[in-house]
């Protein structure tokens, strides 16, 4: 009698067509272990079956790229290190959205743990954590609990492992009410000559399991993360894993210690789909086979079945292939760090995955169909015009004028999207490692490369409301903003990781968002020489639990990394001294479509997002970097959400110094000039305005001298009069949102 009924197949998330494909691949019916393995390997989360076709079109190469997508993380060359070494930066961003909605603390914590492992698996010491968070309306009944839990989870894990959390971004929008996004990014630094990959090679080489024991937690997490939320989300709590950052810290140290020897052939962390995906990927990448003795897997509980062991997502575990004869030395290192170590199998040449348990073969699957030949779908999507009609974004109507710019600015700074995130980032240890040079609050986080004068600049960016209104322009903007934030501190943008969060790809409108954003990102990356070296896709971010199949805003979160050769030549956003001149350079000013001014002060989400001129973005970035390198710029800040007025306010609040700025002659709308969100703009200060204006003119950039740094108020002047607000009042307004929301 068959144990595989149509109900069992459906419960494993496989379509009838996919099950036919399983039967064809095996030439027989699978047993339950085999079905479970197909189920997780072919889940959206592991197989990228809806996204692979489009991901292949992204630019992934540059002379400084050492390893692009396909491994655990992306690797770029960052030049010479101490003592003649060559250094590489290794980084990736990953989502942990579904688990974080169900159980925010553990969901977020294990998200951090998972991305850390992706990076140290490749031989890097993690040096910085970042994140990109999206929450629903603050007054949603669950939202305060979710924000508190996610922030505590990120802090609880990152603080304990001793990797500084140096920055990130947080947005609020009702589209995330039933489906928050938690995207975590880790950046590490490795010796470029000692990078570890996942290809299992060498027939007979031992396969070794290290780290924590395997428990029953997280079974079917990958399958859960590959479906919409139904009404039963509370019942899915057991599919959320539980993290132990203390063990992760031991695992980092033990792995790096072993990596400093010559013992490892290949290594892979056990992330989503645990032992299944790690062993299948290692064998597939090595074009080999694998045989595992399931009796030897270290288990937390007695009586665990091979099915449970293969599908468990217990955290803090790694799988390695060692060179023969190195087992005892490796074991001594892991025992010293009080971690489990077990030889559980060997590399074979069968190109099959064979599992034995209790003296019997309980699984024998050809590897091809599991990974390389997994299903791939070219899902249909609607045209740009059809999408625009479906999205229903209204054209930009008459915009109310700002009659008191200072008052509008103060009101904007107190809204959730622009409020100070101090409440969040003070819960993260941002300084452990003693190499943090800039943390949250500036444009990019900056972390010194230990023992050198170099530093890495890191920024996470995406403006989902732009992506919804126009996926192509929104995709471009996300890349361009990361490029701009990195340039604004004086670093050269080098490469990008991404985390593509979207709704249900089986809806052609959602697929149009995905394809549009990717096209925009691809064009931006090509023009800006900013290749994508790693990433993650999270689909099915839709929720029925909060009523009505509503999708999130399209959210292609970008994590950009740049390099500065000498961290002493670094720009920060704070004004430096009274009398310094303030100039905005780059693009024109005046675009109010999709602006926060319109949405947060007037309750309207209208118009097209600001277009991004990519050649302009590149020239503006180059010009700003040169102004910093030449020692002209005394402060630099990118203009983004909230426009020029918000940029000026942030520069004032960072320093305590005020400024007086004037609406240029011939500009009739104060609202458009001060709150427009045109792209490719930077506010730059210097002792004199002329060198900035000259550099801008030479590069063919717009440039407007706005005024100077003075006093302790921000003063906006125009022929109609003036409007002013004390920097201290701006600060109080800026802090008020989180203080009132969280501590009330």
């Amino acid at each position, binding site marked *: 009698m068959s144990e595989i009924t149509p109900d069992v197949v459906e419960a494993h998330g496989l379509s009838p067509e996919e099950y036919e494909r399983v039967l064809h691949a095996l030439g027989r019916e699978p047993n339950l272990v085999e079905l479970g393995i197909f189920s997780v390997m072919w889940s959206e989360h592991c197989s990228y079956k809806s996204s692979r076709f489009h991901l292949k079109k992204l630019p992934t190469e540059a002379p400084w790229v050492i390893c692009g997508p396909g491994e655990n993380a992306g690797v770029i060359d960052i030049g010479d290190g101490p003592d003649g070494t060559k250094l590489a930066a290794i980084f990736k961003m990953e989502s942990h959205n579904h688990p974080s909605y169900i159980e925010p603390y553990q969901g977020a914590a294990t998200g951090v743990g998972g991305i850390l492992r992706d990076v140290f698996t490749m031989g890097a010491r993690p040096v910085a954590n970042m994140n990109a968070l999206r929450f629903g309306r603050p007054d949603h009944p669950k939202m305060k609990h979710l924000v508190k839990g996610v922030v505590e989870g990120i802090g609880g894990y990152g603080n304990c492992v001793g990797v500084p959390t140096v920055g990130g971004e947080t947005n609020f929008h009702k589209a995330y009410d039933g489906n928050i996004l938690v995207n975590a990014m880790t950046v590490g630094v490795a010796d470029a000559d000692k990078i570890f990959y996942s290809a299992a090679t060498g027939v007979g080489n031992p396969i070794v399991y290290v780290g924590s024991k395997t428990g029953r937690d997280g079974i079917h997490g990958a399958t859960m993360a590959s479906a919409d939320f139904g009404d039963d989300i509370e019942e899915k709590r057991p599919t959320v894993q539980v993290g132990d*950052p203390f063990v992760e*810290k031991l695992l980092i140290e033990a792995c790096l210690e072993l990596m400093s020897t010559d013992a490892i052939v290949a290594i892979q962390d056990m992330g989503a789909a645990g032992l299944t995906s790690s062993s299948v990927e290692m064998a597939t990448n090595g074009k080999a086979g694998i045989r595992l003795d399931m009796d030897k897997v270290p288990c937390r509980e007695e009586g665990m079945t091979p099915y449970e062991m293969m599908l468990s997502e217990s955290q803090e575990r790694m799988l390695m292939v060692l060179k023969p004869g190195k087992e005892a030395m490796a074991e001594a290192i892991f025992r010293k760090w*009080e971690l489990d170590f077990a030889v559980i199998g060997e590399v074979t040449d069968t190109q099959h995955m064979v599992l034995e348990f209790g003296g019997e073969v309980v699984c024998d699957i050809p590897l091809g169909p599991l990974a390389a030949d997994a299903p791939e779908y070219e899902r249909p999507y609607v045209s740009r015009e059809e999408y625009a009609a479906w999205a229903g974004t209204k054209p930009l109507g008459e915009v109310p004028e700002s009659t008191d710019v200072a008052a509008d600015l103060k009101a904007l700074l107190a809204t959730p999207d622009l409020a100070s995130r101090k409440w969040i980032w003070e*819960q*993260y240890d941002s300084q452990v490692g003693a190499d943090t*040079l800039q943390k949250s609050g500036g444009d990019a986080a900056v972390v010194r490369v230990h023992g050198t004068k170099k530093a890495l600049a890191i920024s996470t960016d995406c403006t989902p409301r732009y992506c919804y209104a126009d996926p192509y322009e929104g995709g471009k903007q996300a890349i361009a903003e990361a490029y701009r934030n990195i340039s604004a501190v004086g670093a050269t943008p080098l490469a990008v990781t991404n985390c593509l969060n979207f709704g249900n790809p089986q809806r052609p409108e959602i697929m149009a968002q995905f394809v549009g954003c990717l096209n925009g990102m691809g064009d931006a990356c090509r023009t800006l020489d900013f290749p994508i070296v790693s990433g993650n896709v999270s689909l099915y971010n839709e929720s029925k639990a909060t009523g009505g199949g509503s999708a999130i805003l399209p959210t292609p979160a970008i994590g950009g990394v740049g390099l500065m050769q000498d*961290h002493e030549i670094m720009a920060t956003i704070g004004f430096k001294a009274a009398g310094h001149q303030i100039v905005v350079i780059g693009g024109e000013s005046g675009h109010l479509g999709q602006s926060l001014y319109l949405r947060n002060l007037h309750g309207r989400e209208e118009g097209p997002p600001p277009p991004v001129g990519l050649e302009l973005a590149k020239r503006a970035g180059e010009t700003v970097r040169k102004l910093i390198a030449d020692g002209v710029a005394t402060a630099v800040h990118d203009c983004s959400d909230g426009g020029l007025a918000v940029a000026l306010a942030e520069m004032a609040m960072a320093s305590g110094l005020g400024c007086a700025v004037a609406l240029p002659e011939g500009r009739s709308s104060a609202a458009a000039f001060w709150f427009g969100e045109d792209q490719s703009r930077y506010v730059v200060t210097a002792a004199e305005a002329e060198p900035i204006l000259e550099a801008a003119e030479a590069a063919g950039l717009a440039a407007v001298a706005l005024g100077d740094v003075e006093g302790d108020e921000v003063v906006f002047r125009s022929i109609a009069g003036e409007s002013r607000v004390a920097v201290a009042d701006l600060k109080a307004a800026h802090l008020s949102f989180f203080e009132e929301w969280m501590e009330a």
Partner: protein
Amino acid sequence: MAFTAGVITFPGSNCDRDMAVAIEAVSGKPATRIWHGDAALPDGLDFIAVPGGFSYGDYLRSGAMAANSPVMRAVAEAAARGVPVLGVCNGFQILTETGLLPGALMRNAGIHFVCREVPLIVGNDTSLFTTKYSAGQEIVIPVAHHDGNYYADDETLDRLEGEDQVAFRYAQNPNGSARDIAGVLNAKGNVLGMMPHPERMIEAAQGGDDGRVLFEAVFEGLSVA
């Protein structure tokens, strides 16, 4: 400078490297790294640092398990002989758990972990660690902890204040500590525990060098002796 400094590493320590880097940056001499399982300390240690982190994951109680490790018995013996011992953050928690320093560190009054650059007021300015500061001086050193709320009974607090054993006070108390205490000395003045991280304030790039002064004082004092 002719002396040897040691930094102890427990499972879960994560400021041990930063402490060793700071010691070397200030003294010019690498610190000796000491593993928690060692029952004996290396010969001839002149200064011992117990660094921050989450020893044993802070499970049970911050610092409680590390306090019972073999190496801490050896540290206590060294402290009794007069060897200077500095405990920072989790190191401070471990020193109170071993009884080398009075009091205890409880969950922050605000419940949350707090990472912030805090202004401190120097109290004692005569100990080996604090001679290069002056009493009443304001310095800035970051804190990063979940359990930094210093507690002792009133009698103990009176004694600490009366005997000039309060090394640092918070100018703006971030965690609810009794009498704003951020760092305390033992009665002999050779053991200092503090929640702020002086090893993170060694040079301008880190935001200032107010922490460097503490290490300079120790190493200059040791060289003279």
